[in-house]
């Protein structure tokens, strides 16, 4: 049986001889988390993204210790100086060291972006899935809320509310941004749940007696994991930009605190003549987006058992190598019937 079928993909069925089965001790199964981690680790791009993300975090929090400058300190000898040994990324119009400033901004942007992305995706997934799974009044009420939030001008509301939380923690800002960015995804999740809830594996779980919230979090939401992960990535990007635009108008992160948004906004006037003022903070913004999307792709493939990228690589290599030499005999076999009938008759 093993002659024909590679045991990795097509396990041989058929009953096991009883003696063999008895002798075998129950081996501990590999947990699902470890399987996922292993599959994630096989994806080089995802590992690179993760490495980049870690590097950004390290830079954001460790970077300020590497330089003697502080983001609030003004160097009155260097206004708008280009990158040099003293100021690695140059200085701003006010003589502030750009490296220190960007690293500080990166801290806020990373945290706010990630938190808002995760929060809004979680909200949309939960609300959308619950609404669709339970249907009826749950669905109606939740969708009213969604529609209400959709028609509210979120930017204005955040702007109006911002004076009232001025001085308090920036976490309020995260909650506000998150609360206004989940509705569209929520509707998408709802419609996807409608189709998923009639799938047989969901019904099977239901008839097993699995409680509804567990079904939602164990079966329904993981089935749309790729959509949710991509959505998180988009939300992170959108949150960083949203935070930047709010900060630009003075509603977001407040001075003396800085974010990447405020750093870019403050230097827009000089960006064309002193390009490093734009390139370094904007480059960090791009790196955030890039690293998160790499990690997101990797996670999606690791969670999706059909993804080719996460399968054991040795297996792929083997089959790839086999192809060339193996094709030769089969090609000749196919060539035989293609010959003239007379030649074939003599051959057989």
């Amino acid at each position, binding site marked *: *049986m093993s*002659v*024909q*079928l590679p045991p990795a*993909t*097509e*396990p*041989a*069925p*058929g*009953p*096991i001889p009883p003696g063999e*089965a008895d002798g*075998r001790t*129950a*081996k*501990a*199964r*590999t947990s*699902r988390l470890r*399987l996922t981690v292993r599959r994630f680790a096989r994806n080089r791009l995802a590992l690179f993204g993760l490495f980049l993300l870690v590097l950004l975090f390290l830079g954001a929090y460790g970077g300020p210790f590497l330089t003697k400058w502080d983001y609030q300190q003004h160097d009155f000898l260097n206004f708008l100086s280009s990158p040099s040994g003293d100021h690695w990324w140059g200085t701003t119009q006010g003589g502030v060291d750009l490296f220190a400033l960007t690293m500080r901004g990166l801290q806020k942007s990373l945290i706010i972006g990630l938190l808002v992305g995760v929060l809004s995706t979680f909200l949309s997934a939960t609300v959308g899935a619950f609404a669709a799974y339970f249907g009826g009044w749950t669905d109606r009420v939740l969708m009213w809320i969604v529609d209400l939030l959709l028609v509210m001008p979120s930017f204005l509301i955040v702007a109006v509310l911002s004076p009232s939380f001025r001085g308090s923690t920036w976490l309020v800002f995260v909650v506000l941004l998150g609360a206004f960015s989940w509705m569209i995804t929520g509707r998408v999740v709802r419609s996807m749940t409608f189709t998923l809830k009639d*799938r*047989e*594996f969901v*019904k*099977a*779980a239901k*008839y*097993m*007696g*699995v*409680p509804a919230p*567990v079904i939602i979090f*164990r*079966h329904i939401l*993981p*089935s749309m*994991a790729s959509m949710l992960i991509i959505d998180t990535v988009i939300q992170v990007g959108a949150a960083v930009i949203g935070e930047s635009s709010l900060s630009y108008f003075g509603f977001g992160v407040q001075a003396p605190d800085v974010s990447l948004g405020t750093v870019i906004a403050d230097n827009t006037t000089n960006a064309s003549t002193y390009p490093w003022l734009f390139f370094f903070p904007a480059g960090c913004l791009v790196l955030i987006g890039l690293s998160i999307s790499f990690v997101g792709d990797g996670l999606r493939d690791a*969670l*999706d*058992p*059909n993804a*080719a990228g996460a399968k054991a690589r040795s297996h792929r290599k083997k*089959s790839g190598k*086999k*192809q060339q030499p*193996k*094709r030769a*005999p*089969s090609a000749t*076999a*196919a060539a035989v*019937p*293609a010959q003239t*009938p007379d030649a*074939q*008759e003599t051959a*057989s």
Partner: protein
Amino acid sequence: MTETRPTQPTEAADTAQPVLAVSDLTVSFPSEAGEVQAVRGVSYAVRPGEVLGIVGESGSGKSVSSMAVLGLLPESAEVTGSVKLAGRELLGLGDAAMSKIRGKDIGMVFQDPLSALTPVYTVGNQIIEALQVHQSLDKAAARKRAVELLDVVGIPDPKRRVDAFPHEFSGGMRQRAMIAMAIANDPKVIIADEPTTALDVTIQAQVLEVLKTAQEVTGAAIVMITHDLGVIAGFADRVQVMYAGRPVEAGPVDEVYYRPRMPYTIGLLGSIPRLDEARAEGTARRALTPIDGNPPKMVDPAPGCPFAPRCPIAVDQCHTDEPELTVAEGAEPPQALDSVRAGETPLTACHRAHEIGAGLDRDAVYPVPVLPEAGAIERLPRAERATVLELDGLVKHFPLTKGAIVKRTVGTVRAVDGISFDIREGETLGLVGESGCGKTTTLLEILDLPSGQAGTVTVFGKDIRGLNRADRKGLRRDMQIVFQDPMAALDARMPIGDILAEPLKTHGWDKARIAARIPELLDMVGLEPEHADRYPQEFSGGQRQRISIARALALEPKLVILDEPVSALDVSIQAGILNLLDELKTRLGLSYLFVAHDLSVVRHIADRIAVMYLGRIVELGAADDVFAAPSHPYTQALLSAVPLPDPRKERERSRILLSGDLPSPADVPSGCRFAGRCPKYSELGDSDQARCREEDPAAAVLGPDHTAACHFAAAVDVVESAVAH
């Protein structure tokens, strides 16, 4: 391979000149994993008026080869060999040239009649289009011909129906319309690719009848591709069995069915449950002989016979040399070369074919699995066993609503309209009926444990109406389900171990017990404990269904509800699952509610049978009684429509053909629901007919365990009728 090549016209064979001759056809597709060799050398020839059946399991290349003949494969496919239509080479013709042939000289009937008709044009327009493309007919003439064609294929009231849209047709009528289009231009060959697979048995019988009529009208040759050995047995003159892209056995139907020489054919015939299964009084049922393993992957096939890894009598040579399709030794010697050309001599691709023909006993090729002895519970008389599930007058109606804002009820769909049955311990009740009869609704009604509408459902002696949440959860532990589609029933994102652990976790098992239980479960259904780490898509369909069964059995339930558990599987795999179910039932003392549309499968596995029609049970009783003496006209029609994989019996049987289709459950006729289609009704006198029309028949008791809801119930033997005498 060489023997069936009928290319050069010879003086003697002129009368039997093949109209379509395929020789050494190979098809390969590029794919991610490598080159897929879908077809590896198919040769056949059909003469006018002849029916060639091509049988094979999914992936055997039977459909691909027909697509290659029609030139309908994607550009990426590489096709070699030769396809000659009345002497003209078709391979290598461009699409424009092929279009002139398709639909004119070669008619096509596809599996899915819904997707084969364009939904936005009327059926008539599509037939008219088919006519006008190939013939210079004016509109009026084409329309007249379209009406004629619809009449030929038995569409009632064709003058009016010609203007109907495809969605207004039922599945059977759509397939008739497809056949009308296929014969519109008097084709020389009709290629029918699984023409009845998507249809119910009674409709299948009608459509096969229409295909026969179509052939008589046009005198065309038919190439019939199917996986159903029963359909071929009664329909085809010659048959070709395909495996792994090659024909492995070919010959006249009788020869292949009664004297198969290729182990695969023998296995295939042994693995199908049969309606005419002989079951002597009191003896245990016959175990089916499954073929172990799975069909090979068509990428990088290993050398040797592709069937060798699954073959019980493979010898060393089988693993190294692939056998050619040759005249089987031990077969009747070919009288003349012409006979070989015409395909009258059986051909086999097996190194040991001569032994099978002579010394080797066919029945001994496959070891018959031993089913365990009937358990203590199964030996008890039925009346003494505990009742597991009891339905009494269960009703499920759905309101039909209209209107976007204010919903008003405009009608009722009577999906389930008062059904009663009970299942005792250690018993299998087969619930059969055609699609739309309410089987699935009944199941869901039992499983949802609802509390609305009329009727009672009693599970293990408890009426589910009065249950609280905890009791319901407890009931769920004792009642589990196995779904039809093993691909959809397992969460693709969870490894097998987690899937099996889910019911255990839900019902509060601790980790150590779960870890011990999972290998036990996998072992029980014939899988390896190591498989727990793999994901469902790494398994084949049959293995996935085993996993589904393992999950259903995890909590040691007493009742397992099986919703068409084998209808998505190939026959050779299906046999293994049916044997497993049989074995588990005896070992674990289970009761099954087995829902299926395939009567042969039900015949094999069920102890009792309930036949459903339009939301009602029309006949209920012990399986042996119902099959031996079906008393409701609907049961009789249903049984007579099931094709037997036995050409001789098939030819001698007379079919009870039902007229029309299943009425909509939203518009249930008054009186007897079946009266409108009943073959018996038309034979009755006026007063009796009035009774059928007005009075809803109650279940009439016909025996100790046999009831039928018919005013004039009378037993008719429809399975064996002609053969027995």
